[in-house]
């Protein structure tokens, strides 16, 4: 990553090189290729708002029909229309779920869950919950007051109607805003993935791509969540003694020249994991407990501590003209 990308978080854009782009794509692609669409997200928001209107109209209709049949019928008509429109949207959304852009499948994937967790950590707060509860109470109070007005007078009371619908509309608006914001957060994740895929070609050619600080923050949050998930997985694997440790001296390290050499050393522990019983034919004559393997031109001697579950590399020597594969 470039220095600018690693600088303290500011409102500045971040520059990504090809390594950054590939890594970011791996973070956002962990769940596979299914991605939600903004259209499906907006459909959900409108659906939820319609449920709010349906519920409010129905309750108000029930209350007012007892006092004034005309008002009650109007509310029931509103509720009925909301119900029909909601039904159509639900059907459309459900049809979409069966298609390629399966929003639910994506959200249940590894990266979908990471994005969801990132969203919860960033934007969802108890303050929003309290806000909704308070305005919900005000709404109910407004309905009660309006009912009282209707019961004691013979006319439609305009201020009463405002008292009922203003808090209700605010509640619906806040809920809609929160849902829309969440949907936009998801949308940001998959739009960023599209953007990064577009970066791949020219960053591989040596140029860099730029993402906004908001996008960078999203990547950082998704990374954080995935690191936590990885830590849980490795804890489980360690409890099963999946990884033998490697103990290697700085002197032995001098013989390591490439990532291939590194793989050879790592293979020692992988082999032990697969078959903890050591091959006695690889033991060093005259040195009990010491084993030797040849890999290409690399000769490694080691001992195994089964109590501490580790390989202690005693020497690594590079032989000229080697080539025997003894692993």
């Amino acid at each position: 990553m470039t220095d600018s990308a690693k600088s303290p978080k500011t409102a500045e854009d971040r520059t990504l090189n090809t390594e950054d782009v590939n890594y970011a794509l791996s973070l956002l692609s962990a769940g596979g290729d299914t991605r939600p669409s903004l259209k499906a997200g907006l459909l959900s928001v409108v659906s939820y708002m319609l449920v709010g209107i349906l519920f409010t109209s129905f309750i108000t209709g029930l209350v007012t029909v007892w006092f004034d049949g005309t008002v009650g019928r109007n509310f029931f008509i509103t509720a009925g229309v909301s119900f029909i429109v909601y039904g159509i949207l639900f059907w459309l959304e459900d049809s979409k779920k069966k298609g390629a852009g399966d929003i639910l499948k994506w959200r249940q994937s590894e990266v979908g869950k990471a994005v969801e967790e990132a969203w919860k950590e960033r934007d969802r707060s108890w303050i929003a919950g309290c806000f909704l509860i308070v305005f919900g109470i005000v709404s109910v109070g407004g309905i009660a007051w309006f009912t009282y007005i209707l019961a004691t007078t013979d006319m439609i009371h305009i201020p009463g109607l405002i008292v009922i619908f203003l808090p209700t509309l605010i509640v619906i608006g806040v809920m809609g805003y929160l849902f829309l914001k969440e949907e936009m957060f998801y949308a940001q994740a998959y739009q960023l993935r599209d953007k990064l895929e577009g970066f791949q070609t020219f960053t591989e050619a040596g140029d860099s791509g730029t993402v906004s600080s908001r996008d960078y923050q999203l990547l950082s949050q998704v990374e954080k969540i995935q690191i936590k998930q990885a830590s849980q997985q490795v804890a489980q694997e360690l409890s099963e003694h999946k990884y033998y440790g490697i103990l290697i001296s700085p002197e032995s390290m001098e013989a390591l020249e490439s990532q291939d050499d590194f793989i050879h050393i790592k293979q020692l522990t992988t082999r032990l994991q697969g078959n903890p019983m050591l091959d006695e034919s690889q033991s060093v004559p005259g040195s009990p407990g010491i084993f030797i393997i040849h890999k290409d031109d690399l000769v490694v001697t080691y001992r195994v501590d089964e109590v501490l579950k580790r390989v202690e590399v005693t020497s690594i020597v590079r032989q000229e003209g080697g080539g025997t594969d003894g692993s």
Partner: protein
Amino acid sequence: MAPDATAPAIPVQYSYNFSEKANEMLFNTKLTPQSIFKAVHISLSKLSSGPTPTHNNDIEPLIPGNNELFSYKIDDQYVLHYQVIEAEKKFVVFWVGRFN
């Protein structure tokens, strides 16, 4: 390739390894085995040099209050995330991060 002379001596009681995921990630970076080993060794020496690893500015607990999971900033580009198993004197890197 000669090792960095500034790298501190290895605290011999600790061994290390990389999870499959970390292994895969390492090979997608420009890190050399030496730079990885150096980072591991420096981190190990710091880990065993004080009352708690957190007194070093570049080693932080991954999760506050958890004394097994740590993050070690190699340089401006990479951060190693690792778990320490004291009972086995082992150190396992499970993630090579870039955006935190």
